[in-house]
């Protein structure tokens, strides 16, 4: 698809400066590249194309082919190359075009990138960012629509961050680049504000001009509420907020938590919210079983099962590959409709 649109600057004050998530992300990378020569970007179609989802738009023009490198379709080789470069003190950002492709290079990722620091007893650091696109909802079917963050979060040694909006996308990328650990940075295509994909209204928003870090490991309570807690992340945050706004007039007051990072997971924020509301809905676009939603449930009940005054509710992909036909894809994704139905169960339970 054609490169992402340029900054949509609202008339006047830079305070009102609005960017798409894709632009904010690329801006964060660019600012770190200016600050530190060791930051380079590698991947497929991240140069002239600017990244299939716009994550590297404008970087080649600005930093040249020595620091923004298009690779062959050899994920094992170029992700491993990133690891070796990081071991030697560089800070590579390597893009895996779609997270769905992890299976061709997972050994470098989980047996090397994630374990070298531990195996070396802390003597070797691997400060790299593995950036990848996630998610469905646009008809790309089984091999191009997955989230899979549960798969990465299950394996020790890598941090996992998942932004939901432009400001966090920039701040989490800068924090990831500066982190001395490998960080898997997972952006959902649906939050990028791409000109060629249905945009959620919050995919273009104010982003501070200067470089800043959004802390890794800290969730955000994006909507305070008292009746029930919705723990979610990425594109689903926007569905949850939309449902919350829709139900507010009926007197249903939802608290919405945007996890922002899975590893480390901000258990404290989840627990204090559930302690307050006594009701928990987890909304996750990854596969339901053996993943994120289960882990959150466990963290709550290993603290105190009494916190839950109603049965846990989960809205996730029901352990089925993402089908192509829209009617089927809609049925398995965590849509506002499914979230609303779950909230009704939860609050009347």
């Amino acid at each position, binding site marked *: 698809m054609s*490169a992402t649109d340029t900054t949509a600057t609202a008339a006047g004050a830079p305070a009102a400066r609005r960017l798409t998530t894709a632009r904010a992300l690329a801006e964060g990378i660019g600012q770190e590249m200016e600050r530190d020569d060791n930051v380079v970007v590698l991947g497929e179609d991240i140069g002239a194309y600017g990244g299939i989802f716009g994550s590297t738009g404008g970087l080649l023009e600005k930093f040249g082919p020595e620091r923004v490198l298009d*690779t062959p379709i050899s994920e*094992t080789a170029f992700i491993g190359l990133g690891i070796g470069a990081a071991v030697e003190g560089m800070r590579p950002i390597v893009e895996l075009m779609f997270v769905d492709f992890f299976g061709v290079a997972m050994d470098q990722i989980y047996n090397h990138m994630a374990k070298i620091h531990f195996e070396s007893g802390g003597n070797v650091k691997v400060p790299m960012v593995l950036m990848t696109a996630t998610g469905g909802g*646009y008809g790309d079917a089984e091999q191009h629509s997955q989230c899979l963050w549960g798969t990465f979060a299950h394996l020790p040694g890598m941090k996992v961050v998942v932004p939901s909006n432009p400001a966090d996308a920039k701040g989490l990328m800068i924090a990831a680049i500066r982190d001395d650990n490998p960080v898997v940075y997972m952006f959902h295509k649906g939050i990028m504000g791409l000109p060629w*994909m249905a945009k959620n209204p919050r995919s273009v928003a104010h982003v501070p001009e200067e470089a800043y870090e959004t802390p890794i490991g800290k969730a955000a309570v994006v909507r305070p509420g008292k009746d029930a807690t919705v723990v979610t992340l990425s594109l689903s945050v926007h569905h949850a907020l939309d449902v919350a706004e829709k139900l507010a007039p009926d007197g249903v007051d939802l608290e919405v938590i945007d996890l922002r990072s899975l590893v480390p997971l901000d258990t404290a924020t989840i627990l204090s919210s559930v302690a307050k509301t006594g009701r928990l809905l987890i909304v996750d676009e990854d596969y339901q079983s053996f993943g994120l939603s289960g882990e959150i449930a466990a963290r709550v009940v290993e603290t105190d099962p009494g916190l839950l005054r109603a049965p846990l509710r989960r809205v996730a992909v029901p352990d089925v590959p993402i*089908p*192509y036909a829209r009617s089927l894809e809609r049925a398995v994704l965590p849509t506002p409709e499914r979230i609303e139905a779950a909230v009704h169960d939860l609050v009347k339970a």
Partner: protein
Amino acid sequence: MDDKTRLDLYRVMVLSRTYEEAILRDYHADKKPAWDIGAGLLPGEMHLSAGQEPVAAGVCAHLRTDDAVTATHRPHHIAIAHGVDLDKMTAEIFGRVDGLGRGRGGHMHLFDPHTHFSCSGIIAEGLPPALGQAFAFKRRPGNRVAVAFTGEGAANQGAFHESLNLAARWNLPVVFVVEDNDWAISVPRDVSTAISSNADRAAAYGIPGQRIEDNDVEAVYTAAGDAVARARAGEGPTLLEVHTLRLWGHFEGDAQGYRPELADVPGHDPIPAYEHRLTQAGILDAAAVKTIKDEASARVEKAFAFAKASPVPAPETALDYVFA
């Protein structure tokens, strides 16, 4: 090469092109005014094969219905050349219940047990399953073969190497066909690949390798004939690379700003060229061309009508078919 064969090659190329033009039309028709990849009758990525018809036509002309073919994310020309049912294939691309996969798979996941055709959206990962089909064929009567298609960009993926070595070592009846259209999305072949011809990589596995230049359907036909014959005769795999042409974008919506030679591309369209060649040879004339194109249009229209008449899958069936 006899006239009938040449006409058949032309016919298949025309049918395939007519098909892609029809998809192109419907794909974009209802994504306006604000182009949205997820909107309309045909959502998702759409990788069309215009310009690459000579590869599919020339290779599949040697195949029987019970031979296996694995294709890539750009599968339509190959499916058509191998004789996948056009109605069911189109219904699948439209995500309907009468599709090859009952609407579950879409254009990158076409599975036809009848013609042993399949494809995958993951680069080079269609090769290993082709080895398995060849492995099964080798143990049974019939001298069946498997043909695995892939792009030149895919030839730098580990699966390519592993598959060629294993096929060669086990002497499997497989033909590997690399469609070199010069581009892997925005990355030119010389940026991604250390050598100029993937056919030279055959030597790394001790098998014959041949590169066919100029997107020449008859040269493809000849080379593929030898390769398929070798496989049927139990002489093992062959690697072919065809220098072909990506006439359109990588996928629909690709502005191709990265592509310097864009202006010359239409001038290299293989179909008018072959039409001219056959006309010069006195095998084709304007009337015959018209008949062939009309037949193709009629066949494609029938397939599209079938697809559009087929029901959309019911949401309640979304969990079906995870397990047998």
